[in-house]
């Protein structure tokens, strides 16, 4: 369905009243790819999508489809399908007519419209609701209409703006699978904006993590998950424990750091250094909850090969089915860990982690930007 080779964004930027909502976005998207733009609200991901759709004019850069410049075309001439966060279904038109709208605009013959609309509605399994108005459908059904309306045109590119954010958790999972299925079975090229890293990791072939209008890192889910380029990206990739610290010593890709604000006496950890670090640098240490092992204080001696020992007090225990999520208060900071058995709340524990599971990042995020782009290249 994607009848192009590559879509190229070069230095795309958008300023709103003197503020860069999006700056210097360089990205090449190959046909058939599923690319997710990931970041918190205000990071520029939706701006990027709207610029691509033509709904926002660019202030910098250009967009080329197979070398042909398209950023000068109005949105109605770009031929991209778009799925809006609010679905933006035409409330006065039935499901059928919503889906047929784009085909009618293209002047497709009536008979062909009928069959293509039916096929698209069947594809999203809404056959029995074809005559209903959007207001009579549930959120998930409306979402499927929005998708059918976008894909019925067989667009070269489908843009999705947080399409699942208005759905409840269970439906979100179902629709996630549905979107991935449609992407694969129709051979679509999809750009997907989200703030949910799980959604991005599970759907996308490639992720673009953004912050304050700039790209932080581009890579496959695996690359980002295993080797985030900055603590900001790590934060998005499930490193829930992000701790400020100072480098004590650094050598051979490893760094010894002293945690700030931990229990008195100073807690030292050894971790994998990401980027060049030297003693005295302010850093952030990132550890996933599932990599933090909860042990009892009495145990002792089990720290060999570990990154170090963080003493603390259990303050929260949540039941998560196969395991327990444990909140441990260590000095001023709350650390998140997992445990197979529930420790006593208020009990003293120690937290340990393997050295290669503790990532040490420079504190400044601006410094890592060049490196992030290196990864992207």
């Amino acid at each position: 369905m994607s009848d192009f080779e590559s879509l190229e964004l070069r230095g795309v930027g958008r300023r709103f009243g003197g503020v860069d909502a999006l700056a210097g976005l360089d990205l090449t998207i190959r046909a058939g790819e599923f690319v997710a733009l990931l970041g918190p609200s205000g990071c520029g991901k939706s701006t990027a999508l709207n610029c691509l759709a033509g709904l926002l004019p660019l202030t910098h850069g250009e967009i080329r489809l197979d070398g042909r410049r398209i950023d000068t075309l109005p949105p109605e001439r770009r031929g991209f399908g778009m799925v809006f966060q609010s679905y933006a279904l035409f409330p006065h038109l039935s499901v059928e007519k919503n889906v047929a709208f784009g085909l009618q605009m293209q002047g497709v013959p009536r008979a062909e419209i009928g069959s293509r609309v039916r096929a698209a509605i069947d594809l999203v399994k809404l056959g029995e609701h074809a005559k209903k108005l959007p207001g009579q459908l549930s959120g998930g059904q409306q979402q499927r209409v929005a998708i059918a309306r976008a894909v019925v045109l067989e667009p070269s590119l489908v843009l999705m703006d947080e399409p699942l954010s208005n759905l409840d958790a269970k439906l979100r999972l179902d629709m996630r699978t549905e979107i991935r299925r449609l992407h694969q079975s129709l051979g679509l090229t999809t750009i997907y904006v989200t703030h949910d890293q799980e959604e991005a990791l599970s759907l996308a072939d490639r992720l673009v993590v953004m912050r304050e209008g700039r790209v932080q890192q581009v890579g496959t889910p695996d690359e980002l998950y295993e080797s985030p380029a900055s603590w900001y990206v790590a934060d998005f990739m499930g490193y829930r424990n992000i701790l400020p610290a100072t480098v004590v010593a650094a050598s051979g890709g490893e760094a010894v750091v002293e945690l700030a604000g931990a229990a008195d006496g100073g807690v030292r950890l050894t971790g994998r250094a990401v980027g060049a670090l030297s003693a005295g640098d302010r850093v952030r240490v990132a550890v996933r909850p599932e990599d933090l092992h909860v042990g009892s204080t009495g145990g002792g001696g089990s720290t060999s090969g570990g990154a170090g020992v963080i003493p603390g007090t259990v303050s929260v225990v949540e039941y998560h089915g196969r395991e327990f999520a444990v909140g441990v208060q260590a000095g001023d900071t709350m650390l998140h860990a997992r445990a197979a058995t529930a420790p006593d709340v208020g009990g003293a524990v120690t937290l340990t982690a393997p050295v290669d599971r503790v990532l040490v990042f420079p504190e400044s995020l601006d410094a890592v930007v060049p490196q992030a782009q290196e990864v992207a290249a």
Partner: protein
Amino acid sequence: MSSAGRATASLRHRLAERGIDSTLFLLVPGLVVAVALFVYPFSYGIGLTIQPTAAMREQWGGGALANYVAFFRDPFVFDSVWLTMRLALPAALFNVLASVPVAMVLRHRFRGKRLLTSLLVLPITLGTVLTAQGLLIFAGRQGWINRVLLELGMIDEPLKLVNNYLGVMLSLIITGFPFAFLLISSYLSGIDPSLEQAAKTLGAGWWQRFRRIVLPLLAPGLATTFVLTFVLAFSVFPSARLVGDAMGETRVMSLMAFRAFGEQNDYAMASTIALMMGAVELVVVVAVLGLRSLLYRGTTGGKG
């Protein structure tokens, strides 16, 4: 407990179920005012219409209904229906249709938007008499328009812009347009802008977006706006007298009612004309709202 059919809750709950609770007291002030200032005078007026003067009975027959016979039989009176319609319908139509493109443009953000909006809405504050006064000065025989055109040699004698149909029409537009514009602006802001964006990405040009998306969603609002501006224009009185041709082409119904009341001291006939005025308005309002009920009237997705 086999109380499938019978509610067992307390009386208080059962009353609340039917909307009867202490908040109903909030209706009291409104009801008192409505009865004192509308229901009673209105009923009294209806009563007056079936107590025609002896002269009317004599002239038109029909007994107690002599005033109604007079209304329909006397061309001098009955023609005023047409004369009023001829002003109110085009004025309301123009106000609604002209407001749509202006309101569409003013949805977007641009420099000077607030100033422009204020200028468009300002005439609301003027009142009809001041508007009429302004029109006389501006567009009268010795007004600025005529003086400028004469000086420029574009016309040989002053254009007749006031003291006729045109003068009243201008006045109705000046006073009615801001209302229509404000109403339509608020209806437009109730339409989710992402609907138009979606239509754009689906390949619709501006006319198709307007015709297929905005207009159908706006239409019920247009109908309501039309009804309101029509009623406003239909009851035209000061401008019909001040900038119109009160005994000729702008001999509107309210003028006829005033004439019966003020000049002929025939309260009964004045009430009859006033009542018929209401009846004509009601016919138009019901017709328009009837058409409106055929349109889509659900949510328009916006902020409302």
